[in-house]
């Protein structure tokens, strides 16, 4: 197949990776492309499209990572995207990444590719795990039976990559005949009839007609759509009625026959080329033993909480000293630079720009790179280890009691990194109601951009309990999310209840390489953000702090001071009715880190350090109340924008922005006034 090849140079190869989730496809992609991968999106859907470059000898390869799917049916966006690419995309050859220790399931996907006529190389990945289980695969035999070249690899250990590249380059013009599985006389007769009708109606020759016929017999909705597009609705109807007619007369469902025959073929391939150790019962493996504890009715949730707590401890114990160093560095640099510039006769304005503006503003945000880095590292390790699906399973019980279900859990976890993809991740929920509710509560998952705010305040005002304070904020966010979900559930329109099916992959040790690639991306993005939007806002605020000309820097009479004072009264009952806090919150709607950046500028943090300024201007209670505000209030513009595009309306982002502000105000109020009454932390 691969009929859509664009013109390319002789040494350029385009290769696509396809396979089940948990087949090590992503690891393979990382191995092949290293840090040269580029993460984008397939147009129109939220499925990640990863492309990267690899090189082998004098060949340059473009590697496209297709979404991991179990099949090429049309049940989800992932599958449609993958299938579309395989039928009409521009590529030379496909690397089908197969989990060698799980051939039955993986070959089901392979067989679908082969029936489509995709030219592929079978990559028997995770060969080490298969070996551990005593599974022996005869490479030659299986290649023969499947009709494809075969390569053995262990992507997680970097084994076999070279041979894979060599095979890929060698077979870049591969052209194999499509696999034909004998579906039994009844179905085969129908297939022939449909194929001749397709030919008669001039169905596109770009797609394997036998495959299309089988799909139509299976009532695959995408295939039907394609048929109607190709031959027109009335001719399509003729084919559909023929199929329906035959089905009525048939004894068994064609669907079942087709699946059975596919599996017959797979079983035959396996029995002839794979040796498995005799096993009378399924052995209890390590993953099961861990699961017995982790998914236990009573222990499941406490364990999850403990794991989350552990992540915090880790992020802070390691992060704090590092932050301390960076902070000290910036303070020293600020002081030194300031002195230097003044000494050199540089205008005080420019000096102030550099020390108060850049170092005070942007510097105070950059200081948090260690925290961001460690947080994402911890989450990345957790995800790669396989624990996250167990967490979703465990949380499903809790969530169903509130009328949500396990699938809403993933967007929430993603939201801890950033609410924008968190909101986009709700696309996996089919029920509109579930989607909207998940979107509405997603901002309550405290995103990584707010972390600098928490850390700087916690460090300044709760020095001995910093990690506990921060953890309490995250926990508060989750609790509020749960409560709001319950409320929304009652007041929003009723939708269908849905069920779920979810694979629990075996536990794995995450590969350092994969995890570090992700970390690098994230830290890079953070720095970029600091250098762009945060910088821009800091500059603006600094300018406002110096106007009208001649005003004392960042005083209540400066423009920013006056602006802040307009807003301040709203926050008076919450304990932080000062203009600095008010303006930082307002600007925080642009990007949450800006809250810190703003405070850094207006408190001239480039000289004294932000922590000192905060201690002088906030009581512990006011600080906590402020943090609650930051946790719960209106999310950043980017998030609101994402909500608008996901819901295709203005209504929902406006509702989100408003209800969260009100909620935040109320909770902060309760905390501050309550604390005042009880005399805590004043």
């Amino acid at each position, binding site marked *: 197949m691969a009929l859509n090849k664009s013109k390319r140079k002789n040494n350029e190869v385009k290769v696509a990776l396809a396979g089940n989730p948990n087949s090590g496809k992503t690891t393979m992609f990382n191995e092949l492309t290293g840090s040269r991968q580029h993460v984008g999106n397939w147009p129109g859907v939220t499925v990640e499209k990863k492309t990267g470059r690899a090189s082998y000898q004098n060949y340059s390869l473009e590697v496209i990572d297709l979404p991991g799917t179990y099949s090429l049916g049309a049940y989800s966006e992932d599958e449609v995207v993958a299938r579309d690419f395989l039928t009409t995309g521009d590529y030379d050859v496909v690397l089908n990444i197969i989990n060698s220790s799980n051939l039955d399931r993986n070959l089901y996907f392979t067989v679908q590719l082969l029936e489509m006529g995709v030219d592929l190389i079978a990559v028997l990945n995770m060969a080490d795990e298969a070996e551990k289980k005593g599974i022996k695969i005869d490479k030659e035999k299986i290649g023969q039976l499947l009709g494809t070249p075969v390569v053995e690899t262990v992507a997680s250990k970097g084994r076999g990559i070279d041979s894979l590249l060599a095979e890929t380059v060698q077979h870049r013009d591969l052209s194999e005949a499509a696999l034909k599985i004998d579906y039994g006389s009844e179905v085969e007769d129908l297939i022939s009839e449909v194929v001749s009708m397709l030919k008669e109606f001039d169905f596109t020759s770009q797609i394997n007609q036998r495959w299309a016929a089988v799909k139509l017999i299976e009532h695959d909705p995408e295939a039907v759509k394609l048929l109607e597009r190709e031959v027109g609705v009335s001719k399509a109807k003729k084919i559909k009625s023929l199929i329906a007619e035959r089905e009525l007369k048939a004894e068994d469902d064609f669907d079942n026959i087709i699946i059975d025959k596919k599996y017959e073929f797979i079983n035959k391939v396996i029995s002839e080329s794979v040796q498995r150790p005799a096993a009378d019962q399924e052995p209890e493996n390590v993953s*099961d033993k861990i699961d017995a504890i982790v*998914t236990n009715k009573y222990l499941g949730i406490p364990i999850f909480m403990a794991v989350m707590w552990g992540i915090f401890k880790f992020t802070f114990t390691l992060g704090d000293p590092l932050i301390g160093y960076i902070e000290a560095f910036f303070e020293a640099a600020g002081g030194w630079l300031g002195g230097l510039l003044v000494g050199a006769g540089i205008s005080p304005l420019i000096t102030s720009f550099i020390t108060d503006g850049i170092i005070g503003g942007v510097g105070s945000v950059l200081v948090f790179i260690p925290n961001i880095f460690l947080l994402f590292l911890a989450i990345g390790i957790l995800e790669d280890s396989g624990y996250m699906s167990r967490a979703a399973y465990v949380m499903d019980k809790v969530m169903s009691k509130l009328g949500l279900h396990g699938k809403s859990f993933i967007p929430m976890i993603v939201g801890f990194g950033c609410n924008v993809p968190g909101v986009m991740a709700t696309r996996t929920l089919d029920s509109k109601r579930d989607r909207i509710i998940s979107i509405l509560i997603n901002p309550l998952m405290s995103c990584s951009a707010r972390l600098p705010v928490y850390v700087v305040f916690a460090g300044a005002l709760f020095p001995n309990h910093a990690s506990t304070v921060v953890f309490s904020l995250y926990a508060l966010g989750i609790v509020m999310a749960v409560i709001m979900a319950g409320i929304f559930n009652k007041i929003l329109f009723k939708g269908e209840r849905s069920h779920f099916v979810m*694979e629990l992959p075996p536990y794995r040790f995450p590969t350092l390489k994969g995890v570090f690639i992700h970390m690098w991306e994230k830290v890079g993005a953070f720095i970029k953000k600091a250098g762009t939007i945060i910088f821009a806002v800091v500059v603006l605020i600094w300018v406002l702090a110096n106007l009208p000309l001649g005003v004392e820097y960042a005083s209540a009479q400066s423009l920013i001071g006056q602006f802040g004072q307009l807003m301040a009264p709203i926050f008076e009952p919450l304990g932080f009715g000062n203009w600095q806090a008010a303006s930082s919150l307002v600007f925080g709607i642009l990007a949450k880190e800006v809250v810190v950046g703003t405070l850094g500028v207006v408190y001239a943090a480039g000289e004294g350090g932000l922590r000192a300024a905060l201690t002088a201007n906030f009581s512990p209670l006011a600080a906590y109340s402020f943090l609650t505000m930051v946790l719960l209030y209106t999310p950043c513009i980017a998030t609101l924008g994402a909500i608008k595009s996901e819901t295709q309306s203005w209504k929902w982002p406006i509702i989100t922005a408003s209800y969260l502000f009100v909620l935040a105000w109320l909770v902060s109020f309760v905390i501050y006034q309550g604390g005042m009454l009880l005399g805590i932390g004043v």
Partner: protein
Amino acid sequence: MPLAMLRPGETACIKEIVGGRTAKGKLTDLGFVSGKKVKIHSSSGGPLIVGLGDNRVALGHGMAHKVIVDTKGCEN
């Protein structure tokens, strides 16, 4: 009987998958096909955790009702 009715530790043989196209398709994709052995690992409220060979799958109750099994085993 439906898979949903089995207790933890029990094994059975899948006889058929019922339900609409999408449901059947998703179950089949994950390996629920007639003739396969399946074992219940956990069913403590909420979804069940089910073992298919070396694979573990969490199934909501509704889905588990669509998998019809026979506790007598897969002799043929």
